């Protein structure tokens, strides 16, 4: 494999000249900087403030991944002149198998010169490009990282990738939770880890360990006996009319990505390389391969498809502008005509490992534990017995949360409806916070009396007919429960507030409800929420 790596791509994508100090930050941490900034002592990982301290006239840029993806397409196109098998791993990183091209150009070194010659005009002096050649893509990437300033490429001869990897620290495997343990076991280099027996690695570290071990031995992460997916796994979107705007394409890409991901996982597969194909009105077909080491998730698929389409469209647009200025005849770069068809074709698939379990007691494993307990209780009590809460929104204290059967949700996933921010609409007539801690399933019927012993009601204008003084259990009720925790059937009201009238579903005669709520504090210091409907009072909740 040959890998072309543009180390400062996030900065290059912003179009910063080499001699101007600039840094791209995410969450106030520097993720990339220009050579000029590096010369001033700015490095990746430092805080934005430190970067500004070391280099006061530095330009701070926010990361724009879409821009990086879009502007990387010319690099891929330049490499297409050398080999058709170009695969993009991400903005700034592209690779292709060397076997054919290397023989054609007369060796790996010559190939590297060809590649550099093709890529450098695109970068136009805005950034460096580094080339690594090795057996696998992982080793090739590390080889590209090992390129020092003057040289152009590092070529690891065939079969020697293992020796190249062996002295590197295990941290290069980029599996933090694994390398942490390996370090404590005394395995500090990739070579020491590679020397372990594969069966032992799988037994001790599971699948994460197995994949990392394959990398350490200079093999590709996934075994080479890849099943080619059936051709009907490809998903296609027809545009009618033809699309030239990225918004429409992105929408289609999202839908296709979801569809492809669902059909793959339905077959127990995950996609590690996908071909994105677009056909235009003028009959051209554009195709590009994208690779991802882990399996591509639906969101990652959609993102890559969007970058790709944006890249093609952007290229055609800028070419057109250029031609208009120069009065040149149009040539075909990028997607000039409207896109009429978009396809996502899974190119290499691997058996899906399912959700990756954290061997070290991670979140996913924990959720699995809980899911097993849920299954046992469902076996005992029935499928509806265990439920999980979600926000629903409402005025009454019992209406704000709804319970869903636990069987219906994935406990290991984030669920948006469990955060209060999910409820965006205000509910007029809501009782002010704090919420009562205790809301009985069945409200308790009570009587509310004023000093004279006359029942208190609420007028049509939402006011109390008189001041409440005593709350007592309904004389007619037969059960012997007492007023919420207190031993008595009668309680003196010391303070009260309200009423807050609530009119629900006034547009519907059948379900229309008029109610009013009132907070009361009894002489024992306990506070409660009372509600009146159709002239009768109920104790609805307790501020326990």
């Amino acid at each position, binding site marked *: 494999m040959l890998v072309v790596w543009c180390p400062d791509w996030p900065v290059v994508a912003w179009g910063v000249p080499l001699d101007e100090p600039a840094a791209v930050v995410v969450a106030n941490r520097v993720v990339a900087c220009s050579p000029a900034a590096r010369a001033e002592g700015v490095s990746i990982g430092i805080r934005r403030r430190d970067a500004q301290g070391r280099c006061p006239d530095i330009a701070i840029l926010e990361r724009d991944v879409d821009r990086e993806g879009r502007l990387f397409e010319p690099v891929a196109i330049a490499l297409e002149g050398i080999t058709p098998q170009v695969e993009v791993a991400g903005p700034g990183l592209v690779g292709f198998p060397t076997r054919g091209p290397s023989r054609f150009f007369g060796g790996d070194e010559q190939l590297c010169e060809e590649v550099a010659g093709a890529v450098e005009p695109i970068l136009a002096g805005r950034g460096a490009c580094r080339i690594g050649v090795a057996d696998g893509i992982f080793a090739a990437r590390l080889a590209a990282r090992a390129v020092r300033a003057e040289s152009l490429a590092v070529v690891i001869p065939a079969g020697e990738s293992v020796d190249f990897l062996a002295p590197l620290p295990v941290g290069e495997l980029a599996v933090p939770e694994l390398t942490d343990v390996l370090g404590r076991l005394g395995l500090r280099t990739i070579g020491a880890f590679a020397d372990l027996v594969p069966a032992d690695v799988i037994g001790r570290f599971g699948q994460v360990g197995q994949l990392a071990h394959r990398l350490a031995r200079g093999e590709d992460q996934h075994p080479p006996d890849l099943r080619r997916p059936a051709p009907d796994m490809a998903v296609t979107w027809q545009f009618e009319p033809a699309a030239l705007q990225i918004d429409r394409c992105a929408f289609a890409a999202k839908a296709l990505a979801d569809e492809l991901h669902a059909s793959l996982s339905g077959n127990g597969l995950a996609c590690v390389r996908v071909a994105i194909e677009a056909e235009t009105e003028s009959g051209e077909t554009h195709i590009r391969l994208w690779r991802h080491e882990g399996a591509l998730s639906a969101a990652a698929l959609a993102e890559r498809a969007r970058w790709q389409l944006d890249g093609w469209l952007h290229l055609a647009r800028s070419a057109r502008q250029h031609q208009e200025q120069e009065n040149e005849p149009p040539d075909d770069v990028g997607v000039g005509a409207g896109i009429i068809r978009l396809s996502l074709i899974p190119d290499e698939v691997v058996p899906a490992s399912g959700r990756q379990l954290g061997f070290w007691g991670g979140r996913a494993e924990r959720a699995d534990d809980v899911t*097993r307990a849920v299954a046992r209780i469902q076996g005992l*009590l029935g499928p509806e017995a265990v439920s999980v809460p979600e926000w629903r929104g409402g005025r009454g*204290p019992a209406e704000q949360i709804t319970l869903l059967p636990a069987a219906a949700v994935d406990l290991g996933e984030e669920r948006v409806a469990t955060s209060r921010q999910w409820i965006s609409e205000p509910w007029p007539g809501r009782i*002010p916070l704090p919420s009562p*801690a*205790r809301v009985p399933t069945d409200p308790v019927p009570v009587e509310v009396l004023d000093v004279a012993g006359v029942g208190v009601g609420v007028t049509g204008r939402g006011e109390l007919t008189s001041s409440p003084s005593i709350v007592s259990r309904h004389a007619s009720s037969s059960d012997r429960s007492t007023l919420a925790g207190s031993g008595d059937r009668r309680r003196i009201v010391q303070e009260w507030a309200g009423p807050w009238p609530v009119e629900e579903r006034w547009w519907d005669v059948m379900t229309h409800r008029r109610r009013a709520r009132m907070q009361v*504090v009894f002489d024992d210091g306990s506070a409660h929420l009372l509600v009146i409907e159709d002239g009768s009072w109920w104790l609805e909740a307790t501020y326990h």
Partner: protein
Amino acid sequence: MVALAERLDPDLLRKIKPVTLSKDRLLEVPEVLRPLMPWGGIQRGTTVAFAGVGGWSLAMAVMAEALGSEGWLAVVGVPSFNLSAASEFGVRLDRVLVVQDPGPGRWGTVVATLLESVDMVAVAPGLRVGDRDRRRLTARAREQESVLVHLDGGRTWPSTTDVTFEVHASSWEGIGVGHGHLTKRRAVVGVKGRRTGAASATVPVWLPDENGQLSAAPELAPVLSLSS
């Protein structure tokens, strides 16, 4: 030796520590309650109860702190437990399981099953718990390092709980006679139980304060009787 331990990264120290004593397996309690706890937190594998008017709010605040962002809570057989109030105190609803009605005779099995996988199980059994269930649940909590929480003050538990939080003298503010609304509550919290040592101190708290959280309240001056 001391110098070495000080020089090492605290994270590393925690990892290489050979034995964990049960007192090290602590669940955090809210800052204001820390002086009440002899170990400074709730020990995993114990039973905890909350009593008094305001006990449920205190339970919600304490559980929110103990569970943090990753801990799981199960609520068994307490349909009146208002999860929106728990959420206001900071309990993460995506880490909550609810068993509304465990059914007669199954309560002990359900609670035991949940003690195996979640960090805290909140219960308020309607009937007195049998001695067999008590032994089984105590053992299960100890083995699995989970915590059984009694919302009814441990009234139905046939032996003393390890720690009982008691809320005394609660009084609401913000509400008047016909105006305002409940905003905050002043209360006094104390602990008792087998694992609380001789601590008999109490702390004044807001339960909740105006932000809906548990926080320290200033001491009130003692009320003196003016009669001779």
